[in-house]
């Protein structure tokens, strides 16, 4: 069966590549076609996702109600302490605010919320409409900050100014305003910041614990289980360990430029990537603490000896099965491709909403002949690829899940809605279990695709 070409618009042809067919030159980072059923989100969404896990900050959405309603605790970013972040605060702009401006309302809302909840800082998100009516958020924030004595930080996240990636950048700029304002005394030499993990299903805690066992202290968790005071002194850390999601890379760059904090790009997903990440951090601190390599080796060995028997079982069952990947950022795709390989599976489709040229080249390098690589896809395309490649499991987000299920294809959520930690060594076992439970589920015997009724 070949792809029904009619579902692919000519203008999208250069955003799709089949490895082995011609030179690789994928067009990306393009605005979605008007009229597209795009799976992409907006700047605000990007900012909200990054900043939201900071649990003792107030997150106020300045805009009409929807933007706040849709982002009310939809992502399970856990906190070990305060949970102010799980509340949804909105100025709920009304017609008269749109006409006369919403500054006064914003001011009042901040006053009231700060008095009642005594947050350590406040983030104020602008939405599209605020960008249009021209509220001077910056000034309002400055005056409230002065009055209340806490940082009140505007986030320039008007949705129309780009895609999610622009939102990550706005979030980084907002966080950066806090840095350098806290006391750094007492931070050990072996002190790091963990960037780019959001503590979904408690993943940050797993990673933090690995570092602890290596003898490293975490200064700031950015942003999973994050705290404002930690962010304020984060510049005192010796190293930024950045999960290369793109989400917090900009922040690492800013910190390097202003405070000289170097950074390492890592990934906690998959066995190789996880081990590699710990070793690279150990390597960084080797001069300061010669014992760290041994401790890290011991840690990896211990974890692996627990993990491998489990993985072997799953591998036996999954070898030869086919996987498709469509995720928000391309970084995740790299790790997923490697993880599937470890499970003996074949990746036949890989794509993302917001990958860069560099990302796609790397994907091209690590995938097999015939793999489809796609940027900013839509449901029709994805469906036709899934069918063509007779996929066993699809990894995606909320909008992809029902498509897979309708086709009778297994699914694994690697996005906001993951229920089990997928990072770390333990995460790999969870991932394997999840893939296994979906791929090998007997329910697929009932679906028409498998019993020959389609």
């Amino acid at each position: 069966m070949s792809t029904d070409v009619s579902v692919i618009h000519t203008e999208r042809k250069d955003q799709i590549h089949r490895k082995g067919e011609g030179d690789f030159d994928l067009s990306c980072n393009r605005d979605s076609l008007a009229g597209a059923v795009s799976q992409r989100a907006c700047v605000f969404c990007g900012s909200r996702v990054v900043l939201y896990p900071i649990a003792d900050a107030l997150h106020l959405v300045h805009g009409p109600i929807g933007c706040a309603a849709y982002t009310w605790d939809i992502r399970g970013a856990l906190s070990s302490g305060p949970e102010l972040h799980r509340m949804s605060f909105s100025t709920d702009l009304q017609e008269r605010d749109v006409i006369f401006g919403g500054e006064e309302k914003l001011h009042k809302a901040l006053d009231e919320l700060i008095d009642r909840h005594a947050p350590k800082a406040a983030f104020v998100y602008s939405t599209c409409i605020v960008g249009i009516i021209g509220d001077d958020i910056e000034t309002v924030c400055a005056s409230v900050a002065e009055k209340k004595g806490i940082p009140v930080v505007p986030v320039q996240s008007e949705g129309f100014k780009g895609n999610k990636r622009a939102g990550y950048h706005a979030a980084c700029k907002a966080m950066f305003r806090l840095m350098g304002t806290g006391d750094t005394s007492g931070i050990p030499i072996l002190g790091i910041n963990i960037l780019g993990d959001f503590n979904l299903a408690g993943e940050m805690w797993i990673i933090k614990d690995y570092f602890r066992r290596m003898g490293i202290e975490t200064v700031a968790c950015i942003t999973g289980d994050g705290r404002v005071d930690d962010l304020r002194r984060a510049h005192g850390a010796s190293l930024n360990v950045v999960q290369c999601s793109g989400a917090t890379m900009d922040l690492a760059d800013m910190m390097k430029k202003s405070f000289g904090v170097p950074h390492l790009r890592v990934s906690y997903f998959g066995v190789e990537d996880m081990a590699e990440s710990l070793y690279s951090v150990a390597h960084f601190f080797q001069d300061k603490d010669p014992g760290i390599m041994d401790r890290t080796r011991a840690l990896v060995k211990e974890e692996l000896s627990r993990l491998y028997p489990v993985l072997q079982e799953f591998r036996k069952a999954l070898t030869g099965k086919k996987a498709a990947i469509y995720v928000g950022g391309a970084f995740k795709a790299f790790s997923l491709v490697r993880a599937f390989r470890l499970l003996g599976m074949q990746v036949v489709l890989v794509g993302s909403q917001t990958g860069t040229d560099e990302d796609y080249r790397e994907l091209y390098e690590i995938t097999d002949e015939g793999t489809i690589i796609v940027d900013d896809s839509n449901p029709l395309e994805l469906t036709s690829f899934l069918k063509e490649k007779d996929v066993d499991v699809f990894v995606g987000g909320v909008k992809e899940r029902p498509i897979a299920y309708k086709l009778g294809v297994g699914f694994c959520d690697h996005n906001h809605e993951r229920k089990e930690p997928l990072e770390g060594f333990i995460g790999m076992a969870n991932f394997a279990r999840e893939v296994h439970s979906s791929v090998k589920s007997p329910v697929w015997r009932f679906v028409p695709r498998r019993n020959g009724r389609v």
Partner: protein
Amino acid sequence: MLLRHTSKEIVNRKALTINPAKTCQPIGAMYAALGIHGCLPHSHGSQGCCAYHRSTLTRHYKEPVMAATSSFTEGASVFGGQANLVQAIDNIFTIYDPEVIAVHTTCLSETIGDDIPQIAGKAQADGKIPAGKYVIHANTPSYTGSHVTGFASMTRAMVDYFARSSGQRSDRINIIPGYVEPSDMEEIRRIAVEMGVRIILFPDTSNVLNRPQTGRYEMFPKGGVTVEELMSTGDSRTTLALGRLASGSAARALDTRCKVPCEILDLPIGLNATDAFVDALRKAAAVSVPDTITTERGRMLDIITDMHQYFYGKKVALTGDPDQLVSLSEFLVSIDMQPIHIVTGTPGKKFETRIREITGEVPHRVNIGAPGDMFLFHQWIKNDPVDLLMGNSYVKYIARDEDIPFVRFGFPITDRIGHSYFPTVGYRGGMRLLEKILDALLDRKDRDSPEESFELVM
């Protein structure tokens, strides 16, 4: 304690909504538009809104939800979205080939002031709309109203764009089901069929958002009211509009445009409201109520009488949309329960008056928030505890923190199934609601009863 930051002390708030009990207009418009067969909803604004609406609908229905967006960028936000929309219309008809594109605006395009009919006219003039295909629209800025008014506006647009009178009255009856689940729409149709009444139901999301697993993904599933049916609504004998807020506007428009008289009823949730619906249908179509329906009614009544002692005096806090809350409160009061905290995010004076009437006899102070939010709702509950909570999935936080039995009802329900398949309207829907309420109350009783009063037979 997920909502530990909710304080007991209530202060008057004007500038701010905390934990909303509503969402924005476009999602309602999108939902309504999905109830037209072969329709692709289109969000005229930046792509974020559209992604959120689709995700939220998908979480609630566990179904793929298709909608296109004008993908505004900075340029469009400054110069207006005409070029985007014209191009979008062209692309959509070329790639996805729907019968209808239902455009709704967003806060952004409204603030810029885009004129959709004018832009659609341009697309028409430029030949971008193929013959026999349609572009309709509704204005849905979210700085007024809520998802309910968005639904109402798109439903009304179906009348404005399609209804026409041929001069020949048909024997059909229009039913506008209101902002209810696909399962409810299906049930309303079933009742009409059972009574031998020919109807046009619009919008109709059954078989769109509660599809069977077929191994196929269809962009345009087989459900939905057809354009042809919508056109002939102008010839129908009468219109029954269920839910004043969600359906009233479309019904009145049919009356004005095509002289189809209308009757606006409460959503048929509960015994009395279903009686009223069945009776209106009987009169409008000049049919008699068949035994099958009478039997269903009798069964529902049987549950109520059998179990009435468990309802007695139970205090309930409910949150949701106005049309639902009116019928639900009436139902609860009618079975001797006491709705004492009632919150909707959708503003409305009439609603408040109506609820006051309904709860007039409740021997307890009744709090009504319209508009209110879930923070206030929670505060009321803290100050004056209840025996049962009813509302969407977000209410589960309150249920857990306060340890109160909880029945899911409304939108969105993101953590349970059932609402897509089993109705809460009609007598059978009423039976299901009763079962849910009783399960919640009796499970709690079982959990909390001391050994000597833990009973096998209840």
